[in-house]
Structures are given as C-alpha cells and as structure tokens.
C-alpha cells in the first residue's frame, strides 16, 4: 500500500516542475499535509477530519477548499455525506514514479549482468 510520503513527494516535484503555485502553497501548511496523510488511509468526511485535528468544521472546510482548489483532493456525493479523498492524478503520479524507478533499476542491473560476465571472463583469463 502506498504512502502519503510518496504522494507528497510527487506533488512537490510536479508542482515545482509545472509551477503549480496552488499545489505548492497548499502542502506548505502542516495541517493540510496532515489532512492529506489522513486521506491517504481512505476517504473521510469533514466531521471525521475535524475530530483528530481538534479544529472546528469551518476551519477544516477552509483547508479542504484550498486542497480541492489545488487539485489535490476530490469529493463525491453519498446521500447527505460529501466524503473527500485524494485526487486520482496524485495517485497515478505515485504509480508513475515507481514504474520509472523500476525501469531505471532494470536498466542498471541488466548492464551490471554484462559487467559481471566481463569480470568473470577476465578473472579466468588471468588464471590461465
């Protein structure tokens, strides 16, 4: 299961690369980072989010508005509930980052296989 840490990392890279000032300033606030960390564990309503932070619902709502405007979270309608979750793009960013890391490592280690083969060949050459 992936983490808020990688998620924030991606937001950080993407927001600076694409100059997304909204995302940039949205995660500069510790409370909003904590909200993202909570949402990484699953969706939650304003009431559920307000509890652990010991904040009023309007205060939490204000933070949620900023996160939503920055495209970091999304909401869905469930009867009278409006649960928030992390935005899909951020999650896809994590997958992209991991896929890229895997690809780079695979290339490295395929090259290392060749280096090791050459090392063994030269060792045998010396013994002969």
């Amino acid at each position: 299961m992936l983490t808020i840490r990688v998620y924030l990392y991606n937001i950080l890279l993407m927001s600076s690369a694409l100059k997304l000032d909204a995302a940039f300033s949205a995660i500069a606030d510790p409370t909003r980072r904590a909200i993202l960390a909570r949402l990484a564990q699953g969706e939650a309503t304003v009431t559920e989010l307000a509890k652990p932070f010991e904040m009023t619902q309007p205060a939490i709502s204000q933070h949620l508005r900023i996160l939503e405007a920055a495209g970091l979270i999304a909401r869905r309608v469930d009867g009278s509930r409006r649960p928030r979750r992390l935005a899909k793009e951020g999650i896809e960013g994590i997958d992209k980052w991991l896929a890229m890391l895997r690809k780079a490592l695979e290339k490295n280690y395929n090259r290392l296989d060749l280096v090791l083969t050459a090392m063994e060949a030269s060792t045998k050459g010396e013994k002969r």
Partner: protein
Amino acid sequence: MNKLTLKTEGDTHILVTRNFAAPPEAVYRAHTDPKLIQQWLLGPEGWSMPVCICEARPGGKFRYEWTHPKKGSFYITGEFLELVPSSKIVHVERMHLPDPTPENHVETRFDRDGSGTRMTMRMTLPDSKTRAAMLATGMEGGMEDSYARLDRMI
C-alpha cells in the same frame, strides 16, 4: 530468475530484490569499484558518468556525476555508514539539483544463492517533513527532467 522485484514496505520503505549469476564477492566489487560503477550505474539511456569517486570504507564519501547530451547534468554525494565486504553496504545519499535534496538511506545486502547472489536493497524515503522543506529549494526544469533526476535516487 534474474527478474527484479520492487515493492513498498510500510509507509517509508521501498524494497528491491534482484538475482545475479555472479558470486557476492563480484557483485559487491561492482558496487564499490569506481571503474566498474561507471559502467552500469547509469539509469535511462543516454546518461554517462564522467566523475565517479567512491571511498569504499566506513565514513568514506562518494560522488557520482551524470551527464546527458541534451538533459544536462547533476550529481549525488553520499557517505558509507557500514561496509561488510561481499555482504552489505549501508549508505546515505542526496541529489544536488544543484540544491541538495533530503537524504535517502539505503541498505544493500548481498546473499549467496547457489553459485550466484541474491541482492536485497532497502530504500528509506525521506519523511514528509524534510520533503516539505524541499518546497523552498525551487527546483527547476520540466517534469521529465525531475523524473529523470529521480531515477538517480537509489
């Protein structure tokens, strides 16, 4: 057999495993001898490593510089925390873009597996606090460049 596995572990670690046909002595050497490192630790196509300094001893420093004809260049620096010949490497490293990123902690183990080696690399991602500090570093360049640079965070 030689296939790489990559999975997340908890909320801060990435675990990578890979088998090699060569014995642990050789795989360890390829990770600590600058002349050998320069031949394989290159990431995506097109990158080369003109500078490779590697003082493979506890407390020793390393510096790897990569360059790409179109994408420019960058480097990482790091220190070895623990080295057990043919068996284990523990180090910290950071990228310079040119401002340094938070440190990554990497533990690499080489275990004998038949006539070959099973490598296990455990990477610890920087925590959210240090990552937030990166906000202030003002990284430049397009997303592709950022991702290319991230390739190096191993």
